[in-house]
């Protein structure tokens, strides 16, 4: 089924097929309320690590946050010898303005129905913004598991748009009915190599295929090295030249989300500066995070096919976010206006068009491609 919408010069054409939408946008004119007031920071009761992270030794080992967050509330003091973090500027009250929909005929019950997530979807930011959305979850069982609701967008960066070059982010998701598991992936092509956009798409496609087609006896959590090595080998095989040289590379983060009756178990494998974050009760916590190197070099695929792995339980009401550095790079644990804004706006899952608006937040500095795949862990089977 396809339909065309014209939305006041913002959206040119939206083609919707089974819940997958590719949106051609003329500029990014959708805006997010600025200076959104974040809620006071609280400990994340609903976020707990199941196993210590496993990291291979290497020179670019990132500094990561520990599993037991300190309560940094209003009265937190700077540690001796360290400067206090900047205090967030006073913000105006939250304005939860939603993108106003162009309604021809109101849907039954007054609300748009969330479509089922396609079995597998891959989207890029090559020459346009792309997004998809939908719900997934096991249909039956004695103890119905939480439903998961996915929002995802890959937006071509302002710099690529102004220079007429190809965006290089890619995103994807796959629901594995047999395992009752959701797989998510984000890849960010390295701008210094010309075919990185193609490589990012290839990485997402291969990652999702390998996740859902792996033998039953191999757990996702234990197969990070094997998965990433297979993806890297596939890149070289399909896109490399005769000498197995590849003029493209990408960062890659892949997550498995297994819904349960009391939330979800999440496992994240990652290489490079695409990131994974958890949001619960207004507080952001990094899950995969490789910032802070001495220079700008980031680990990439296929060069570094050994991911860092972390496993977490997320409570109902949590949000898992995977993002390229063009989006997730603007997040932090305290003062970032984006982190505070989204913590407020994502207390409840936003509409799909609002989510695109949020990913396309207005800030001239963040001019790279922006990708985000977010999952709202439902309160129960009925929360679809």
């Amino acid at each position, binding site marked *: 089924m396809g339909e065309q919408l014209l939305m006041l010069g913002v959206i040119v054409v939206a083609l919707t097929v089974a819940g997958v939408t590719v949106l051609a946008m003329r500029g990014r004119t959708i805006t997010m309320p600025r200076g959104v007031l974040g809620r006071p920071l609280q400990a994340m009761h609903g976020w707990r690590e199941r196993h210590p992270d496993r990291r291979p030794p290497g020179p670019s080992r990132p500094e990561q*946050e520990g599993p037991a967050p300190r309560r940094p509330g209003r009265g937190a003091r700077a540690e001796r010898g360290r400067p206090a973090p900047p205090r967030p500027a006073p913000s105006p009250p939250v304005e939860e303005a939603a993108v106003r929909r162009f309604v021809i005929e109101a849907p039954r019950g007054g609300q748009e129905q969330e479509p089922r997530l396609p079995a597998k979807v891959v989207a890029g930011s090559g020459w346009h913004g792309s997004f998809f959305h939908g719900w997934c979850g096991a249909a039956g069982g004695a103890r119905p598991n939480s439903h998961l609701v996915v929002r995802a967008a890959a937006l071509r960066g302002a*710099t690529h748009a102004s*220079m007429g070059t190809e965006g290089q982010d890619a995103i994807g998701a796959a629901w594995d009915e047999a395992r009752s598991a959701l797989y998510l992936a984000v890849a960010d092509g390295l*701008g*210094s190599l010309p075919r990185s956009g193609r490589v990012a798409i290839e990485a997402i496609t291969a990652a999702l295929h390998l996740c859902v087609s792996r033998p039953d006896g191999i757990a996702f959590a234990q197969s990070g090295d094997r998965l990433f090595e297979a993806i890297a080998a596939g890149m070289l095989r399909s896109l490399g030249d005769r000498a197995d040289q590849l003029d493209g590379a990408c960062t890659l983060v892949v997550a498995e989300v297994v819904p349960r009756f009391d939330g979800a178990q999440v496992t994240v494998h990652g290489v490079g500066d695409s990131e994974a974050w958890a949001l619960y009760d207004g507080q952001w916590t990094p899950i995969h995070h490789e910032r802070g190197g001495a220079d*700008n070099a980031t680990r990439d695929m296929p060069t570094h096919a050994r991911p860092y792995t972390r496993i977490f339980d997320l409570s109902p009401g949590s949000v898992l976010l995977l993002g390229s550095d063009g989006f997730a790079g603007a*997040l932090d644990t305290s003062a970032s206006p984006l982190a505070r804004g989204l913590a407020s706006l994502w207390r409840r899952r936003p509409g799909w068009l609002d989510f695109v608006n949020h990913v396309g937040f207005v800030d*001239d*500095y963040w001019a790279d491609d922006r990708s985000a795949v977010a999952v709202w862990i439902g309160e129960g089977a009925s929360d679809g």
Partner: protein
Amino acid sequence: MTTMLSERKTYPIYILLDVSASMRHSPSGRRAPLAAFNEMIPDLVMSLSDSRSLAKAAWISVIAFGDEAELLCPMTALTDPVHIRSPRDGRQTDYVAVLRFLHGRIGPDARAIEASGTGQSYRTKVAPPLVFFITDGAPYARDRYQRPDEWMPYRDRIVGAPVSARIAAIGLTGAHPGTLSAIATGRPGGRQNAFIATSGATGDGLAGSVISVIERSIKLSVQAGEMVIEVPDGMRRVDG
């Protein structure tokens, strides 16, 4: 859990321009390269400043070199007015002087950039400098050629840790390919960012293509986090 701030990378950009006597030489009545660059570099800066995203992520400095190094424009944010002085005429091409001068500038410039971000809700991280080295001759000062072991140590300090600058060496007619390749950096295992004019390429057209490529390179490199530069029209990449 330690508090973590988001980071904004800021790129120091250096344009190093040879102002030796040969740069003022005008073949067949056409405009000399130095005159063309003197006119085009301010236009380049203005064009870069017009990009709102780039202006928030890059600072620029212009340094001339001939008999000595001369600061034409101190490190300035592209969001601020940028003033570029005209260079004094030079006679020779002192690589030692300019590379030593550049090395001396990088630390203070980085501290100035960092200080500009104080009090923001993010941390300003100074990225490795991007250096565009434009020359038309071999290293020559005090009436003799400078040996590589005289200027290479300064180059190595600039491109080595912790500075880790990326250098594109752009040679006009008369430049020495081996010297350009030695000064430039490139991707590990890849080719050097060293370019030299092809025979017959001179004057305004060549200067224009060089400036155009530098502008595009700055935009692409700031986004990529790594020096990205294409071969200017009228030039070829120096191999080895």
